[in-house]
């Protein structure tokens, strides 16, 4: 059928010539008979048809059957492409029946060449297209030096083209947007060709030149040897053109030379001009080697150190020169400042530059940074595509990749996989964070864990790891360090992500109070970082930074008992009561983390007011509740707690009581206070406190708000152990049931004498209490859920009943 179709295929002259040229283009092996599938497929892809259509075409023309594209198949396929592009159904019959079918249009890297070629064709063709008029102008557009070259070359080309005896293609090349009939020719295409790139927007597009890339100029068929890079290079800088036909391959080396020289000259031109010349293709926004080299050079003019950063202000000035509107520049910045640090690394700068260039050429800015422009990927591309540039790419690549080797391999493919790879590492680091957040108050834990879990979704999380991986590189780290020290809060950098763990480690090591505070703060901030969206990685870093930056400061002023938050009732009470050095720091962080949890609590606390003799203590209890969990893992706490060995388990009961009271929303307030009173006798062991505290996070982890201020009277009672007590007691929030349970427990009188036994006994008791409390907590949770459901249903009813009157 293929052969038969060939006979039946009638092509107009223009079509004949066009197809012939295309075939010649595809005929890389110069067999004149068969076009390799690869090239043909490329061509068809450039036709911008859906893949199913392409497959259908292939099938119809018989190539699928044959496995290759013979001339006839090729012609049929081309015709079918034209049919498909015209929106007509693909039928074999349509091949001959459709009249006046426009030539198939192929969009893609080849476009310029084809454009130019078609221009040539049209120029000497009957259908006078504007191209003839177009050819002259471009040279004017080209930089002065190149202009002349291209012009000459263009004329030269024209003659050669004519020699080819291909008729001009009937192509509606008038308007840039219309995909011109692009000739798949070799890179060399007339520079003078009009720049109507099918892709180009309105902006006059510098007649893309096909210039052999420095690295690929060696082969005779450089352009198509690679894939996208060649096409980009064509458009990179307007260079002298070369005959587009394959027969002129031999000229490539020569033209390459010219182009090289021209190119170097070009790079010397103003940034604006060169910007205009470059372009990015619909194909992933790849940066060609020359482009990258140019960008690197420009980067050097601003920042000699290739591994350094360009500060935001310098970058702003630089890009403002491009005369793009500020809004667009702003968007470009957002896209390219990958780690959101307010400065551009080499990769970021190249990405930004590339986007500016694209924009100037009429391409719309993407909503998200194209994969190929992402810092990591750019490096990879360079390394994989062009060995020549690999060094440049590697430099930045290594810098960026030193800590993320896993990303290298797959990055070629969409960013997702590579980012996914970094995800596990991120997870590890996130583990660190999570541990920190665990240490933070229960409410904090809850909050941050939820947030932490949220971004676990691969899609959102994908972007997340990138900045983290980037910056940990040594060089960047150092830079970050410098930057960070330079402007603490003002310059959040990703090293923060790395830093906080270190900080926390150190903090843990030291037994200073700050440790606790810092740890907590870091934990808080680190977990905060994970609450942010993946796209806002930088912001997470920022947050961490600010937190890390501030927390040390916060805790820096040694835990002066009079906490500087008079407004924070908790804090003030804590200060008064707290003898723990750790407390203040923790409390601070705890307080920081606490506020969200607190608001719902006020009623209970107030309800407990009457029960409480000392409001202050209650507040301290609350604060303690939040802080004590943090204390648990910390050594100093334990050390401190050990002081309270004397306190028997009785205090456990009390704290349990407290917990009971505070925990129950409304239900048990009255009960707990009573039971609490009965249990006031005993004092809890420091360890008991810890355990109770541990149980509290568990409880809190269930999603309830943090403990409300326990009944004040309870606090008061343990006046002697006030300092210790609050910690312990606040963890106890149990309902009356627990209270009853506790009541059943023998209150252990304070026996300083029998420390060990008492402690152990109290420990045991506390453990039991904890389990009971945990159970109670779960029950309460369930009750809470039920109540909420009821509430919801009631509200729904109310909504239905209420007439639609909205304020």
């Amino acid at each position, binding site marked *: 059928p293929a052969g038969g179709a060939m006979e039946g295929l009638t092509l107009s002259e223009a079509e004949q010539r066009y197809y012939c040229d295309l075939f010649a283009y595809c005929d890389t092996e110069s067999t004149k008979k068969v076009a390799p599938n690869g090239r043909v497929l490329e061509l068809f892809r450039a036709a911008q048809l859906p893949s199913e259509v392409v497959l259908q075409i292939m099938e119809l023309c018989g190539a699928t059957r044959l496995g290759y594209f013979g001339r006839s198949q090729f012609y049929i396929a081309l015709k079918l492409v034209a049919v498909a592009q015209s929106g007509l159904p693909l039928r074999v019959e349509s091949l001959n029946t459709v009249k006046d079918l426009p030539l198939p249009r192929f969009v893609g890297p080849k476009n310029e060449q084809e454009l130019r070629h078609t221009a040539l064709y049209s120029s000497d063709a009957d259908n006078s297209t504007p191209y003839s008029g177009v050819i002259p102008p471009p040279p004017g557009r080209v930089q002065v030096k190149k202009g002349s070259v291209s012009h000459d070359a263009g004329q030269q080309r024209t003659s050669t083209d004519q020699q080819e005896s291909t008729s001009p293609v009937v192509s509606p090349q008038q308007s840039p947007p219309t995909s011109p009939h692009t000739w798949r020719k070799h890179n060399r295409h007339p520079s003078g060709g009009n720049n109507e790139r099918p892709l180009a927007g309105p902006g006059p597009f510098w007649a893309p030149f096909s210039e052999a890339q420095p690295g690929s100029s060696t082969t005779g068929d450089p352009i198509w040897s690679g894939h996208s890079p060649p096409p980009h290079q064509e458009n990179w800088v307007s260079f002298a053109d070369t005959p587009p036909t394959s027969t002129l391959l031999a000229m490539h080396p020569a033209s390459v030379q010219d182009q090289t020289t021209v190119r170097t000259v070009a790079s010397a031109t103003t940034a604006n001009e060169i910007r205009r010349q470059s372009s990015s293709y619909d194909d992933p926004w790849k940066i060609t080697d020359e482009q990258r080299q140019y960008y690197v050079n420009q980067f050097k003019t601003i920042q000699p150190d290739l591994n350094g950063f360009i500060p*935001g*202000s310098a*970058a*702003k000035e630089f890009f403002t020169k491009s005369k793009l509107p*500020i*809004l667009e*520049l*702003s*968007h470009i*910045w*957002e896209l390219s*400042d990958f780690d*959101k*640090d*307010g400065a551009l690394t080499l990769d970021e700068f190249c990405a930004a530059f590339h986007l500016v260039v694209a924009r100037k050429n009429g391409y719309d800015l993407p*909503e998200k940074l194209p994969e190929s422009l992402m810092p990591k990927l750019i490096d990879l591309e360079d390394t994989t595509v062009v060995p020549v540039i690999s060094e440049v790419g590697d430099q930045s690549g290594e810098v960026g990749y030193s800590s993320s080797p896993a990303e290298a391999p797959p990055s070629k493919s969409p960013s997702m996989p590579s980012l996914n790879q970094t995800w596990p590492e991120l997870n590890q680091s996130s583990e660190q964070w999570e541990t920190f957040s665990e240490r933070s108050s229960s*409410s904090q834990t*809850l*909050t941050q864990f*939820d*947030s932490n879990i*949220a971004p676990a979704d691969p899609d959102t999380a994908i972007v997340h790891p990138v900045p983290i991986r980037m910056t940990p590189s040594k060089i960047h780290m150092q830079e970050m360090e410098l930057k960070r020290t330079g402007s603490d809060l003002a310059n*959040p950098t990703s090293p923060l992500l790395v830093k906080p763990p270190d900080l926390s480690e150190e903090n843990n090591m030291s037994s200073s109070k700050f440790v606790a505070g810092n740890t907590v703060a870091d934990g808080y901030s680190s977990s*905060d970082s994970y*609450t*942010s*969206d993946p*796209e*806002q990685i*930088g*912001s*997470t870093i*920022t*947050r961490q930074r*600010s937190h890390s930056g*501030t927390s040390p*400061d*916060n805790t820096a002023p040694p835990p002066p008992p009079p906490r*500087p*938050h*008079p*407004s*924070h009732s908790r804090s003030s009470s804590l200060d008064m009561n707290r003898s723990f050095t750790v407390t203040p720091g923790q409390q601070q962080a705890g*307080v*920081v983390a606490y*506020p*969200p*949890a607190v*608001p*719902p609590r006020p009623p209970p606390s107030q309800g407990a007011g009457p029960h409480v003799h000392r409001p202050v203590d209650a507040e301290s209890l609350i604060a303690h509740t939040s802080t004590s969990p943090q204390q648990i893992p910390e050594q100093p706490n334990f050390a401190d707690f050990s002081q309270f060995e004397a306190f028997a388990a009785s205090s456990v009961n009390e704290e349990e009581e407290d917990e009971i009271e505070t925990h129950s929303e409304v239900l048990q307030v009255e009960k707990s206070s009573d039971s609490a009173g009965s249990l006031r006798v005993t004092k809890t062991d420091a360890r008991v406190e810890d355990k109770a505290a541990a149980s509290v996070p568990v409880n809190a982890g269930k*999603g309830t*708000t943090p403990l409300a201020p326990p009944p004040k009277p309870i606090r008061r009672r343990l006046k002697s152990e006030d300092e210790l007590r609050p910690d312990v007691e606040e963890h106890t929030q149990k309902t009356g049931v627990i209270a009853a349970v506790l009541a059943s427990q023998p209150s252990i009188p304070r026996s300083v004498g029998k420390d060990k036994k008492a402690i152990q006994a109290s420990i045991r008791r506390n453990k039991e209490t904890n389990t009971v409390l945990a159970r109670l907590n779960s029950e309460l949770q369930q009750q809470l859920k039920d109540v*909420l459901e009821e*509430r*919801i249903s009631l*509200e729904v009813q109310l*909504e239905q009943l209420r007439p639609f009157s*909205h*304020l």
Partner: protein
Amino acid sequence: MAVCIAVIAKENYPLYIQSITTENELKFHYTVHTSLDVVDEKISAMGKALVDQRELYLGLLYPTEDYKVYGYVTNSKVKFVMVADSSNTALRDNEIHSMFQKLHNSYIDVMCNPFYNPGDCIHSRAFDNMVTSMMMQVC
């Protein structure tokens, strides 16, 4: 989960305000405006504390029968106000808090952009997307 999100500058003019529903938009604007008073009141109440406590979630500013208004203030006195629908009863404080964190992060990103002059209206697409994603959750 919010129906309206607004970013108010230090001088109490809006840098960014976006509502989910096109009708009643004015109502939300008005609500946000009135909530500024509550925000200021809370700020001054907290004012005695050191500024280090400032970057905080203000919590529920005031509830009305239809919706609740939450506030958040940064150290630079930039306020985020979120109006959430009351019908979303399950909206927990934690979630609101995390939403504000996200908002804050996005805002920081906008600030990091050298092309953004503090005090300008926020035109960032990334910020818009983030806000839209937060608001779309409701519907």
